[in-house]
């Protein structure tokens, strides 16, 4: 079978095509990654069909570095099905490095920690949230009462959002210590 025998598989040639793509290219201007002028073919009904019917696009922000690239997450029935391109984001212009392009894998990685665990006598044991928090709080409370609040050290994160970071600081303050820090210092 030669080049031209693949009629069944070949899209029909037509004028009305790639309309959506044109829109994207225009919006992104001269630096757009995609150039489409002159390529025309009929977009069949099947092709414009969304592969993930009923999915929603959620605008969010990459967690890798401080550039703050936009990420568009496509969510179907509460499952993040794929990562879309935020071509219109004013800082990233749709660009991602490998970390950003792989943000979805952070959520769906198979090696995530799946439940609270504690190490007891050198063995990892599963426990419930209530159990875990009770035990931690007990220890902290005892330490606060006996040796004082400065026996605790809080290491926060530059990966948290502002609100969480702020509440982390507040937590340390209300626990009663200034032993709190995060990654700005490394």
């Amino acid at each position: 079978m030669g080049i031209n025998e693949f009629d069944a598989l070949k899209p029909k040639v037509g004028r009305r095509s790639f309309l959506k793509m044109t829109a994207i290219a225009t919006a992104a201007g001269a630096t757009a990654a995609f150039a489409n002028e002159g390529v025309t073919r009929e977009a069949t009904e099947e092709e414009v069909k969304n592969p993930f019917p009923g999915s929603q696009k959620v605008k969010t922000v990459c967690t890798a570095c401080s550039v703050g690239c936009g990420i568009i997450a496509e969510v179907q029935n509460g499952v993040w099905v794929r990562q879309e391109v935020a071509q219109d984001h004013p800082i990233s212009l749709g660009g991602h490095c490998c970390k950003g392009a792989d943000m979805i894998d952070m959520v769906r990685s198979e090696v995530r920690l799946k439940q609270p665990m504690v190490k007891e006598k050198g063995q990892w044991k599963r426990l419930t949230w209530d159990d875990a928090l009770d035990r931690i709080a007990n220890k902290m409370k005892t330490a606060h009462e006996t040796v004082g609040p400065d026996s605790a050290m809080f290491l926060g994160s530059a990966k948290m959002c502002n609100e969480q970071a702020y509440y982390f600081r507040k937590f340390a303050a209300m626990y009663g210590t200034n032993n709190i820090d995060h990654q700005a210092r490394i």
Partner: protein
Amino acid sequence: MGEYARMNFFCDERRCIKCDGCSVACAEAHELPDYISRRKVITMHEGIENMEYSLSIACMHCTDAPCQQVCPVDCFYIREDGIVLHDKDKCIGCAYCLYACPFGAPQFPLDGAFGTKGVMDKCTMCAGGPEETNSHAERELYGQNRISEGKVPVCAAMCSTKALLVGDSASISDIYRERVLSAGHGVTKQPYGWDVAYGNKK
């Protein structure tokens, strides 16, 4: 430019910084197994001043695709817009396309009987394969079909510095020409016009 323009990839080596955004975006978007790299970024003369450059490489969707010529089972087909695709149901994993390919694009999982090469996998320019467009079968075999959704192939769309361009050759050269002509004219000015006729006025 007629309506038979061909779709191409182009990597601007002055801009490529080997961030591997394209290759990971591709792997992630199509959920490839980790031994398949449809796209990869390669650095030459690493660490040598004024010599080092990087390039992103995948199937280049050649006009005279050698893979298509040598394939014993004719599993390749070239779409009207020049995208070179293949039929995984036909492919026998003989790797002749790999031998013919100048770019090392075809990839083979070693999962056949007794470790023989399995069915070939390569860049589809995010255009899927011969299965019904956007069907489950197509996504399983070839990954997303973004072209049919009117979307840009994911590698170029996610290129961090817009080094990787994709589109029909005329438009790619338009973009590249604009980049070259606008050199030295500042970011806010138009590349053409009277205000810059005699160089860059401060």
